[in-house]
């Protein structure tokens, strides 16, 4: 889902970069010592996840994990995803430096949306089954919203919206399900071992 260089028009690239800068600024505000290792580990997980591919149709899709990042980090997912995408662009040639802003926006904005939709479930008073469902939904919806955002970016550059978006959403359907399961598994694991990791976030 990385958009390559030269596909999008400059206006969209600049727009994406502005949104990303704002998101990173919000994310970095009030970052605490305790948050930094958490952001680092999740950033590394996001960085590696893009190598796990699911072959679908004419193109290929890969794991994203932005739902997990949003679920645990909230707005702090923005800097974490920016770092991981920057390194992917430099080391793997996925995406590109000029599209870094747009790509970060496409990945991190859904993460933040999912944080607001499902982040409440991390409180210890919430039942385990509700918590697992919310974590699954977070992983699922983050990829869904990302797909729609990518389709929208391509639409703004001149591709017809509904076929492009439909193709991307359809291709990512298996990824959404896998992401949901992985996010739920990670969230349950973390809740068991380090419940305070999930609860300490207040942005």
């Amino acid at each position, binding site marked *: 889902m990385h958009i390559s260089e030269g596909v999008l028009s400059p206006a969209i690239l600049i727009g994406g970069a502005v949104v990303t800068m704002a998101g990173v600024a919000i994310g970095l505000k009030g970052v605490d010592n305790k948050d930094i*290792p958490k952001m680092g580990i999740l950033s590394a997980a996001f*960085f590696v996840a893009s190598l796990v591919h699911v072959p679908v149709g004419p193109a290929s899709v890969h794991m994203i994990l932005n739902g997990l990042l949003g679920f645990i980090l909230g707005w702090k997912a923005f800097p974490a995803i920016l770092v991981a995408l920057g390194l992917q662009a430099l*080391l793997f040639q996925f995406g590109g430096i000029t599209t870094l802003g747009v790509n970060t926006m496409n990945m991190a904005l859904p993460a933040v949306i999912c944080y607001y939709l499902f982040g409440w479930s991390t409180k210890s008073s919430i039942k385990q089954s509700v918590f697992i469902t919310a974590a699954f939904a977070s992983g699922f919806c983050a990829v869904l919203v990302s797909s729609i955002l990518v389709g929208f970016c391509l639409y703004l550059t001149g591709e017809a919206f509904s076929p492009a978006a439909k193709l991307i959403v359809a291709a990512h359907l298996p990824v959404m399900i896998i992401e949901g399961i992985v996010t739920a598994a990670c969230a349950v694991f973390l809740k068991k*071992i380090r419940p305070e990791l999930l609860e300490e976030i207040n942005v």
Partner: protein
Amino acid sequence: MFKKNQNLCKVIPFLYLFLLILPITFHTTAAFAHKVTIFAWVEGDTIYTQSKFSKGRKAKGSLVTLFDMEGNKLLEGTTNEKGECSFKIPQKTGLKVVLKASMGHMAEWKIPVEEIAATQASQTKTPEAGVISDIISPSNLSGSEADAKQPISGPASLQKEEIRRLIDESLDQKLSPIINMLADSQDQDPGISEVMGGIGYIFGLVGVALYFTNRRKTQEVRGQRSEVEK
């Protein structure tokens, strides 16, 4: 607090291990693909292109566009089942092939003007060589010395042309597997060194960030202390 830290110490090696194993296990199993690449070469008067996603999945039915160096669109084509697409060379300038696969994937390959000029030069000369090579058939050569003298300056160069054409042909044939190999090597999947490097970078950044936040805190504490001492 101490107990919690102990727990964390137990978890962190597992997380590292998970991050390590993740790329290795998946690297070998699935035939996955990611970015898209295009590779183009010139053979005779035709440009051949080969497009694929990394790890060899062919980019079928994708749009390939031929541009000149100034970015003017010259020709357009669609890749076939094997991800291949070919064009007749429209003009003798540097050319650029751009592949647009689905979902915002894009790649390009530049063909320098020398590569086209080299093959075009031998192309334009060959028909001439063909015509005259008929004249230099043995029957003509067996004429009188005076007759033979005129074409003789021709035959040496003409035979050269003929030989060059033959060599070109057989070279194209012999080189095609190598060209295919080159096309294959164009898409290098990120290896373990890139993955480790990236994770190293991230942990390094974590270290730098922690250093700065810690320094800020210790400076605050020092400031408070010096105030107290005063």
